C-alpha cells in the first residue's frame, strides 16, 4: 500500500467491517449466554468474537487506525441496534480497539496476515479485562474474594486466568477473522 492516507474506499471498507462486526457482536451475546451453561469456559469460547471488528477492519484496510476505528464502529452500532450492554459497548470498543491497534503497531504496521490478526486479537483481550474491571467490578471482586477465601486462587491468579482465556479466544477468533478478511479482499 503506497500511502497511509485514508481514501474514500478505505472508509467504505470500514463501513463493511462495521456492519459485519455488528452482526458478529450481536450474535456474540447469544453465544455468550449459551456457553454460560458451561461456566468458566464461556470466556475462552466466546469473548474473542467481540474483538473481530478490529481484525476485520485492519486486514481489509491495512492502514494505521483501522483496527481501532473498526472495533469502535462495530461497538457503536452494537450500542444503537441495540444490545443489552447499551453504551458500555462503546467503552469496551474503545479499550479493545486501542489494544488491537497496539498489536498492529508493534508489528510496525507491516503485517496484516493471520499471525498479526491472532496477536492483535490476543492483545484486545487486555482491553476487555480493563473494561470489565471498570464496568462490572463486583463480578471480579466476588470471584477473587471467594477465590482467596477457599485458598484456591489469589486475585492475581484470577487475572492471569482471565487474560489467558481472553488471549486464547482473541487469538483464535482473530486468526479466523484475518483469514476470512484476507480471502475476501481480492
Amino acid at each position, binding site marked *: 500500500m503506497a500511502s497511509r492516507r485514508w481514501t474514500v474506499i478505505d472508509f*467504505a471498507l470500514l463501513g*463493511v467491517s462495521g456492519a*459485519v462486526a455488528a452482526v458478529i457482536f450481536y450474535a456474540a451475546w447469544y453465544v455468550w*449466554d449459551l456457553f454460560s451453561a458451561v461456566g468458566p469456559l464461556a470466556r475462552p469460547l466466546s469473548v474473542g468474537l467481540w474483538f473481530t471488528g478490529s481484525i476485520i477492519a485492519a486486514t481489509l484496510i491495512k492502514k494505521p487506525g483501522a483496527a481501532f476505528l473498526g472495533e469502535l464502529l462495530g461497538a457503536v452500532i452494537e450500542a444503537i441496534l441495540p444490545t443489552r450492554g447499551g*453504551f458500555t459497548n462503546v467503552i469496551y470498543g474503545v479499550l479493545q480497539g486501542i489494544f488491537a491497534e497496539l498489536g498492529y503497531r508493534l508489528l510496525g504496521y507491516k503485517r496484516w496476515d493471520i499471525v498479526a490478526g491472532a496477536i492483535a486479537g490476543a492483545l484486545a483481550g487486555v482491553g476487555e479485562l480493563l473494561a470489565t474491571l471498570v464496568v462490572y467490578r463486583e463480578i471480579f471482586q*466476588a470471584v477473587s474474594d471467594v477465590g482467596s477465601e477457599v485458598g484456591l486462587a489469589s486475585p492475581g491468579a484470577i487475572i492471569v486466568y482471565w487474560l489467558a482465556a481472553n488471549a486464547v479466544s482473541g487469538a483464535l477468533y482473530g486468526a479466523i477473522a484475518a483469514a476470512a478478511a484476507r480471502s475476501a479482499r481480492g
Partner: protein
Amino acid sequence: MRSGYSRRLGGSRAPVSVSALLLYSLWVTVLAVATSDPWKLGFLALVTGLPGLVLGYRRYGVLVPLLGLSLLGTFLNMLLLYNVGDPVFSIGPLVVREEAWRRTVSLDLRILSLAGAGLLFASTVNPRDAVRSLEVELGMPRGFAFALAFALRLLPLVYRDLQEVMAVRRMRGYRRVPITPGDYRSLFMPLLSVTVERGIWVGVAAELRGFSLRPRRRVRPRFRRGDLVLLVLAVLQGLVVAGLAGP
C-alpha cells in the same frame, strides 16, 4: 434487528434533540459505572433505567426478557460464589446471605441502568437522525460518519446475504448450525467477499458523487424545550451519585 426509520420528511420535531439525548444516555452510563452504592444505583435505575426498559420493551420486545434472565443469572452466580454473611431472607430452604444479596443488588441495578440508558436512546432516535446529529452537531469526522451510515445501509443487506448462504449450505448438504471454525469461515467468507466487493464500488461511487469535496459542517445543536427536562434529570442524578443530594 428492526430498523427504525421515521416517516418525517422535514426536520425533527421530537420534544428532545438527538444530541441532548445522546449526551444524557452517555452521562447516565458514566454515572452508573462510577458508583457501587446500591441506593445511588437504585436512583439511576428508577429515573433512567425503568423508562428506558419500558420504551425498549415496546420496540425490541425479546431483549428485555433476556435482560431479566441475565439479572437472574447474576443472582444465581453470586449465590453460588459468595453466599456469606448475615442471612437477609430465605426462599424455602435457601438462605440468601448479605454478601451475595448486596453484590447482586448493586450489579443488577447497574445492569438495569446501563441497559435502560442505551434503550432510551435506541428506541426514541432513528439511526439516520443519530448519524446526522453526530456529524453535524457533535463533530464526528465525515469519514467515520460515512462509514457509520454505510454500515447501517449494509445491515439489512448482510442479513439477506446470510440467508442465501445458509440456503446454499443446506443444498450442498452441510450442517445447518455451524460448529467448527471451518464452518464459521465457510459461512462468513461468502458474506465478507460479497460485502467487500460492494464496499469498494460504493467507495468509487461516493467519490464520483463528490465525497472529498464534502464541506465540514458544524451546526450549533438546536436545543428543544424537552432538553431542559433532560438537563435537570442529568444534574439531579449527578448530584445523587456525587453524594451531594438525595437518598
